[in-house]
């Protein structure tokens, strides 16, 4: 019952113009923007908007490839742990006197290896992805704690500050550019390539996909590595912005990032979702928390709204369909 409905939905969404869910998100985003500019006179100018990008760019960079992974029917809870480990790797490289390119390479290698470990556990060992990545989450974050303890690393070269603090053109920050580039990449892969179609097929029904000759394991493995590397990119942006590495960096981000993906209309059991939805969800949560910040409302209060939103996203369509079928 569940599978057939998701296949039908997938068929409808094969070439998405802007389906219902994405339109609802867009309306919500416009409402938040309007509310922000009505409540705060400082909101609606280019510099503030550019400042707001850091609220979502780092998390969004991970949420996008994670959406692909969730569409394929898996999940990765260890993303924030990978950020911590990659940040520690960068810190150690910087401490050893390496220059910026080596530091970046250290982060990306760490991210790829961490993602590969997740992929190995899930595709080769056959562990369910939520359990496997809960384990590796404490493994990665624990590794960061074991290496650094209560120390912090701050001696980064000056050129490294560009990624988290620099601007590429005018008010377009390097972080925003990274997010836009990641969104384009994921949109092209998911909606315009054979691999993207296969990701939908794997998530909608893994067995059928396997019997249709799709290497389900290989695709999932590649997606885990992609999510690991995206976490490394986020680690680069975040570490560069903060200018320091601590083992507690990005603590608790995994829940916010997973929330972004689900809010974007991606089905947790796989097979459905679009990049447009995830981008809108990332912007929505980013501007919501930025607006709350302008109003001096603490972030933890905003988490109540995110929680309600998350449940409403799934519960309301169900209620509506039950009401219609009456």
């Amino acid at each position, binding site marked *: 019952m569940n599978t057939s409905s998701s296949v039908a939905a997938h068929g409808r969404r094969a070439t998405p113009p802007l389906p219902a869910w994405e339109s609802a998100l867009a309306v919500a985003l416009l409402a938040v923007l309007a509310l922000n500019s009505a409540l705060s006179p400082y909101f609606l100018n280019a510099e503030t908007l550019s400042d707001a990008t850091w609220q979502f760019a780092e998390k969004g960079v991970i949420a996008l490839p994670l959406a692909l992974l969730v569409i394929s029917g898996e999940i990765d809870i260890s993303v924030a742990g990978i950020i911590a480990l990659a940040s520690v790797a960068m810190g150690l490289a910087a401490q050893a006197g390496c220059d910026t390119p080596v530091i970046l390479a250290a982060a990306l290698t760490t991210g790829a290896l961490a993602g590969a470990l997740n992929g190995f556990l899930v595709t080769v060992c056959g562990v369910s992805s939520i359990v496997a990545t809960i*384990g590796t989450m404490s493994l990665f974050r624990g590794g960061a704690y074991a290496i650094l303890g209560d120390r912090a690393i701050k001696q980064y070269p000056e050129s490294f500050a560009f990624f988290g603090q620099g601007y590429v053109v005018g008010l377009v920050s390097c972080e925003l550019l990274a997010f836009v580039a990641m969104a384009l990449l994921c949109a092209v892969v998911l909606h315009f390539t054979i691999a993207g179609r296969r990701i939908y097929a794997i998530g909608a029904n893994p067995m059928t996909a396997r019997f249709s000759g799709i290497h389900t394991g290989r695709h999932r493995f590649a997606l885990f590595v992609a999510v690991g590397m995206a976490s490394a990119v986020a680690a680069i942006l975040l570490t560069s912005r903060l200018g320091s590495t601590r083992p507690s960096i990005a603590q*608790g981000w995994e829940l916010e990032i997973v929330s972004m993906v689900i809010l974007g209309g991606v089905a947790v059991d796989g097979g459905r979702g679009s990049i447009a939805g995830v981008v809108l969800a990332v912007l929505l949560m980013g501007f919501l928390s930025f607006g709350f910040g302008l109003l001096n409302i603490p972030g933890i209060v905003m988490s109540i709204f995110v929680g309600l939103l998350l449940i409403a996203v799934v519960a309301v369509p169900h209620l509506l369909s039950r009401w219609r079928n009456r």
Partner: protein
Amino acid sequence: MTFQPLTSPPRATSLALLTAAMLAGLMLAYPHTASLSTLAALLDDTAILMLLACGQMTVLLTRGVDLSVAANVALTGMALALFNRHWPQPGVWPVLLLAPLLGALLGAVNGLLVWRLRVAPIVATLGTLAIYRGLVFVLSEGAWINSNQMSAGFLDFPRASRLGLTTLSWLALGGAACIGLWLRYGERGRNIRAAGDNPDAALYAGIDVGRSQFHAFVVSGALAGLCGYLWVARFGVAYTDVAQGFELQVIAACVIGGVSINGGVGTVAGVMLGCLFLGVLKNALPLLGLSPFWQMAVSGLALTIAVVVNARAPSSGRRSFIESRGSAS
């Protein structure tokens, strides 16, 4: 249901042997720790984890997961600390009554979302995790409640020693025994295992699967509520970040104890051993001269190894066929 006795004892036995070997090795290497009081302290240290893990197992048996347990602990703990600060006169008994009730209410919210609104358990409890955690902040206005603002009866209850063990330890042992007996002999308890083992078959047997999930969430919530009071009283402080991230340790203890995330498989004995295993690990690190910062890495490694071993262990044929087909190469 009938696979259960066939597959679980060997795994539980090997975990028991491993934990016992670790404990024996430590006690031989560090003779000053070899005493009954060490064991009692170990039990006291893992008691809250045990209670929460028993609740989590009940939810895992139905193919669900409860990510909101730690937030439930923080919210009930804060509510009861506030209650005690404003009305210290009635003592600890109303608190002991309110704690599981309040927790069960929060668990019932999860249960209704899953049962009535068909929200996937992971999404529903991820949402309520954020909501409950935020409500702790709203309720306390961000302030801490310290032990000097709590009444003596409130603080002393879980720490009082009875027959050589703390009340906290007795509660953990009693709670685990109740859950174990309920799952084995209670009608609703048996329905929970059946609903998770094979939902289709359970439906044909006349079991309301959604309702069983609801019951499991209420049980998990009630235990989390009780632990909320115990946590706050034991550590003598209530604040917004109490037990932050503890839900993952609770799930880890269950998985190490052989509970299947795919539902239907798991025993209280296994879960208790999983908790003790993590407890021994945590208490062994300082003895071995490793800094406490290594704790997370070591328990993460143990969990990762445990899930791989569990995945390799034989389970019921139908499900493993689908999984090996779905994820092979």
